[in-house]
């Protein structure tokens, strides 16, 4: 241990090599976050192609094949390129700081798990320039449709394999760090909520990413090597793919929301100047959601037909998820109750998250109702639902976390006025963008279709205007981050006066190496920054 400590202060390669060979959790965290931002902009540009085409009925800008590639690639890029790497980046930066560890448990593997990602996305994005085009069957890659496209499917599957390997290595690293490297006195039930949610998320990742890898490998062999896993002519069953896919897919959606719960559970207490209400119930609620995520997958596929008993089971099990989720929302509201609240940008995004994520949660309960789902399935109602939970849920939480920890990362305060403008602009336009899609779906507009009947025109126009305004607003976010990284009012170590946690005991910007000597969490001087026993 001593040797390593001395060693990593000595050589610091400069330029590109510094980033290529870095094993420092903070630098790798930064790489993940920058990568995620780049993918967010690429995926966002794809979304704008979709919204531009849907601005008016009829085919105007792109051909239907390309439109389908855009819907598919938008989802793959946003899920695997933007949201997941952003959370992994936050975990890299913050988990060691929050538990008093000097670095991640496996720094070299950490480097590898990041540097796989640019290669994975080069493969994925390169398919758009291939003769057969990119994948166009939706991100779920359902057979037989996904097997009827071009040979670029092989690139997509290899890219998914690489992303999966990266995620699994990241998850193993996070679990090993949390379970093995906590500072003395940092018992499991004294860990910050963000650490808890990531610990559970990491287990979900290890449990389901290999299942996705298996499912896409079966697609690969069906398409290129003559197997018949999903080919009915050869005795296979395409519905089997949907079962395997959603066995991965449903835990996957919680992989994208549990760390967001953790972020919000950090921010709301800070700006309410109170301890998190119901900490233990938060931990159990998170674990319950993770468990339930494994037994509800078939609610994504009610319309394939299943016996009444199965439909009822999946309906009730899905609705049960509203209970632990409700506990969390209750706890956040109770944390704010009678708190001395202030409304800096991170808090605004966290509050936006609580309100708007709840809207997405409620439309999720509607979708769980089997007879109603037969009407909503594959309509824009589903699109509205998951964009409320993923954009105003996951993405808002990521933005909240960036504003919250940016002063710690850069040592400078961001421009608060611009941050507030960014919040209000985004919140207004994201609702203009997605709320009308509920009505479109209820009226019967199917998803993943480049053209529509003229009675859907008005709501599509509103939605497209919202989409472009929201999209342009995110350039402001890029500017704010860039401006903050370059300079500004110096941040204190504490940054926010209500902030609690070991990360606020190190200077801002956090030096490259922190907690080389682990802090003793039981020490009285740290009492304000750690949970009581």
């Amino acid at each position, binding site marked *: *241990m001593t040797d390593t400590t001395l060693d990593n202060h000595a050589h610091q390669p400069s330029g590109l090599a510094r980033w290529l060979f870095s094993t420092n959790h903070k630098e790798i965290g930064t790489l993940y976050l920058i990568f995620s931002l780049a993918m967010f902009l690429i995926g966002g540009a794809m979304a704008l192609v979709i919204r531009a085409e849907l601005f008016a009925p009829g085919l105007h800008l792109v051909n239907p094949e390309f439109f389908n590639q855009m819907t598919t690639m938008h989802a793959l890029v946003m899920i695997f390129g933007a949201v997941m790497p952003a959370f992994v980046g936050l975990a890299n930066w913050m988990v060691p700081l929050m538990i008093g560890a000097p670095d991640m*448990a*496996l720094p070299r593997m950490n480097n590898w798990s990041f540097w796989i990602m640019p290669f994975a996305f080069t493969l994925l994005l390169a398919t758009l320039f291939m003769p057969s085009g990119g994948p166009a069957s939706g991100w779920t890659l359902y057979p037989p449709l996904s097997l009827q496209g071009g040979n670029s499917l092989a690139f997509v599957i290899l890219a998914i394999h690489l992303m999966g390997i990266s995620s*699994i290595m990241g*998850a*193993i690293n996070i*679990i*090993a760090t949390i*379970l*093995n*490297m906590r500072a003395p006195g940092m018992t499991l039930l004294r860990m910050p909520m963000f650490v808890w949610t990531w610990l559970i998320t990491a287990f979900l990742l*290890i*449990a*389901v*990413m*290999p*299942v*996705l*890898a*298996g*499912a896409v490998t*079966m697609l690969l062999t069906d398409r290129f090597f003559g197997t018949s*896993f999903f080919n*009915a*002519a050869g*005795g296979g*069953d395409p*519905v*089997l793919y949907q*079962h*395997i896919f959603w*066995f*991965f897919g449903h835990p996957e959606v919680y992989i994208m929301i549990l760390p967001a719960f953790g972020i919000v559970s950090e921010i709301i207490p800070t700006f309410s100047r109170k301890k998190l209400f119901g900490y233990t119930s938060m931990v159990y609620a998170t674990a319950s959601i993770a468990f339930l995520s494994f037994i509800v997958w078939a609610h994504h596929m009610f319309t394939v*037909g*299943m*016996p009444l008993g*199965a439909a009822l089971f999946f309906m009730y099990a899905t609705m049960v998820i509203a209970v632990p989720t409700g506990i969390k929302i209750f706890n956040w509201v109770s944390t704010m109750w009678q708190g001395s609240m202030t409304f800096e940008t991170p808090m605004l995004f966290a509050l936006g998250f609580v309100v708007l994520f709840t809207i997405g949660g409620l439309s999720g309960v509607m979708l769980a109702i089997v007879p109603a789902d037969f009407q909503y399935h594959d309509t824009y109602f589903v699109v509205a639902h998951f964009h409320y939970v993923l954009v105003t849920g996951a993405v808002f939480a990521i933005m909240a976390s960036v504003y919250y920890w940016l002063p710690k990362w850069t040592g400078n305060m961001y421009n608060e006025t611009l941050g507030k403008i960014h919040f209000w602009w985004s919140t207004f336009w994201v609702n203009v963008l997605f709320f009308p899609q509920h009505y479109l779906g209820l009226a019967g507009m199917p998803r993943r279709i480049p053209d529509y009947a003229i009675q859907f025109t008005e709501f599509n126009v509103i939605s497209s205007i919202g989409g472009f305004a929201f999209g342009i607003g995110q350039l402001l976010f890029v500017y704010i981050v860039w401006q903050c990284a370059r300079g500004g009012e110096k941040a204190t170590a504490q940054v926010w006066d209500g902030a609690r946690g070991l990360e606020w005991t190190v200077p801002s910007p956090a030096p490259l190496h922190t907690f080389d000597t682990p802090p003793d969490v039981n020490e009285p001087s740290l009492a304000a920054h750690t949970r009581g026993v």
Partner: protein
Amino acid sequence: MITGKIKYVGRLALFAVAMFGFGYLLVPLYDKFCEVTGIGGRTAEGPVAESEYLPTEPDLSRQVTVHFDSNVNSSLPWHFEPVEKTMQINPGKMYETAYIATNYSDQPVVAQAVPSVAPGLASLHFNKTECFCFTEQLLGPGESKEMPVRFFVHPDLDEKTNFVTLSYIVYQNDDATENHQTAYN
């Protein structure tokens, strides 16, 4: 601390590998589950022995409508239709009907029919003692063939079920077709 790390990493990596295997294990589990519960509407892949299942007394008090459905995969140059669209049957009694297939190409074609029964749970009680779907079917150029199905519905069929659909999709068997076409030409 170092050994602790290795312990975690080894176990977690093993867990990941096991979950990859579990993804594949879902394939036989799914088949078995569908076979046992009837979910998915699959029927037995071979003939059901009459003596074993056919009760001595048919249930004449009950009538069930059987609807016959046919689908052809787009790459198969066949017409394929049931002789009768529907049939009124008594559970426990043996019936025979047929499908007519016509190869409208100028080449021999081998195809495989894949059956399915709806509602899914009825498939447990829908028994075929003879079916063209148990083997591959070869039709010469322009040839037309009547292909029989012998079946009975077991009286254990759920009381509320009085309408059962037997559906077939025919697919081209590419390998067998290629062999026959090479021999033909």
